[in-house]
């Protein structure tokens, strides 16, 4: 479904040049969930942004269902591929009601039966219709993230790009959102590309996981490999230990990888 090869993203020029993503290649099959993990600043979001073309200065090739992706956003691919952002507090317009937020993509893509679709979308993410005319500030973080997901789903996309969809939420709400995402994927056969820095979350959601470090793929593992603690790279191993429980001696042994 998604076929990325030799993806490079560079920000800035000259001395302030920053190669945020370097020679990244991977393939995701239709219906698969693919995870991206790595510490902060390793370039995870940048990969997603390139695919969704929120960043336009990338080189390499990205294919969606076999079709080469242009640099400019076009309405058709936008509709097939939607994104959910990390911060539910920042990704909803503070002055739009939930209804406005859900209506907007329908208007942009000139879809019919808007009323009905909005109601269905709310139901899909498990929110009552009483939410429809509230403002974002009137609902909780978890509910906001559901709205963000509903907004992405309302266009009936095939691919969902998820950029740390739960890292701003507390554990109890995180569980609800993860369950929701899993259920939807099962019902609709969506393809997920999911970014997180929480190994457990990625392992819970995805079949395969890519570990990123400083813009490069350190390695790609299956979830089993991750669980069994048999990564090839030291970097991944350290990430794994850090994700576990607190251990004083282990923490002191951490090194930095360049």
């Amino acid at each position, binding site marked *: 479904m998604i076929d990325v090869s030799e993806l490079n993203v560079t920000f800035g020029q000259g001395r302030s040049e920053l190669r945020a993503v370097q020679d990244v290649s991977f393939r995701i099959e239709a219906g698969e969930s693919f995870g991206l993990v790595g*510490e*902060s600043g390793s370039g995870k979001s940048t990969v997603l942004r390139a695919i969704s073309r929120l960043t336009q200065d990338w080189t390499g090739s990205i294919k969606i269902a076999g079709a080469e992706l242009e640099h400019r956003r076009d309405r058709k691919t936008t509709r097939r591929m939607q994104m959910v952002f990390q911060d539910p507090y920042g990704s909803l317009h503070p002055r739009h009601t939930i209804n406005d937020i859900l209506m907007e993509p329908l208007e942009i893509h000139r879809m019919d039966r808007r009323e009905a679709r909005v109601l269905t979308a709310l139901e899909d993410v498990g929110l009552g219709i009483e939410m429809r005319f509230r403002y974002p500030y009137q609902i909780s*973080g978890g509910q906001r993230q559901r709205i963000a997901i509903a907004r992405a789903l309302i266009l009936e996309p095939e691919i969902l790009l998820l950029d740390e969809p739960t890292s701003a*939420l*507390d*554990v*109890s*709400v*995180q*569980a*609800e959102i*993860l*369950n929701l995402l*899993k*259920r939807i994927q099962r019902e609709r056969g969506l393809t997920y590309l999911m970014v997180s*820095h*929480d*190994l*457990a*979350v990625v*392992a*819970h959601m995805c079949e395969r996981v890519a570990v990123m470090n400083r813009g490069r793929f350190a390695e790609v593992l299956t*979830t089993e490999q*991750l*669980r069994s603690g048999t990564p090839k790279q030291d970097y991944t191993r*350290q*990430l*794994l230990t*850090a*994700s*576990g*429980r*607190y*251990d*004083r001696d*282990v*923490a*002191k042994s*951490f090194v930095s990888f360049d």
Partner: protein
Amino acid sequence: MTPLLSVKDLRVTFETHRGPVKAVRGVSFDLGRERLGIVGESGSGKSQTGRALLRLSAGNGRVSADKMEFDGIDLMTASERKMRGIRGARISMIMQDPRYSLNPVLRVGDQIAEAFLVHSSASRREARAQALQMLKTVQIREPEKVYQMYPHQVSGGMGQRVMIAMMLIPNPDIIIADEPTSALDVTVQMQVLALLDDMVRERGMGLILISHDLNLVASFCDRVLVMYAGRVMEVIEAGRLNEAKHPYTRGLLNCVPELDEPQDMLPVLQRDPAWVTAGD
């Protein structure tokens, strides 16, 4: 051993246009020279409890308590002057997000030195030396260089360490750490915790660690206080967390995905309205 800090029936209420918001309603606990964890979901009143201890609640907040005593001092009635002497010097608090919690126009080193100077009559040179020493203690490699930096120049992990250095420099008896690691990467998170751990061990302080990550708190602290909607649901030895009985605690524990055991769907927390009113 008498506890360092003793709190009984602490309540914090905020006046808003929609009416009063009871953020903390009847929290009681004692703290010795130990690591106490406070956990609970977002909005459960963890931070407000911490702030109330320092009498730094927001302007629209009202604090009341049957007892809020630190080392024989009644924190409820102490004069503002006295409180200033306590803040930082005896009880200090590591703030949540170093990006916003450091003054952007002052050098980080000077901010650390200031914390020292406020409570001692030392000279600037001494304060500077102390601050450098402290930076070294929190394992900053080039303290001289970092001393001269401004907050926007330091990374999140470094900022958090600066924050810790700043709060530790007057050598307080109690330190409240409000989610000191939630903005950090897992590896850095561990390192910061290790640092706090060292401090508690070496200096014999009391530590309150506020977090919403039950597993983390369980593995780090001695005792855990579980909060929900401004109330304490349960206090439990960290080691025996798995034996927790309260459904809320159990719920929180269960809903975290585990790396080592695959689950299909995660159990979600079923909130019981009775928890809110229990004991009123």
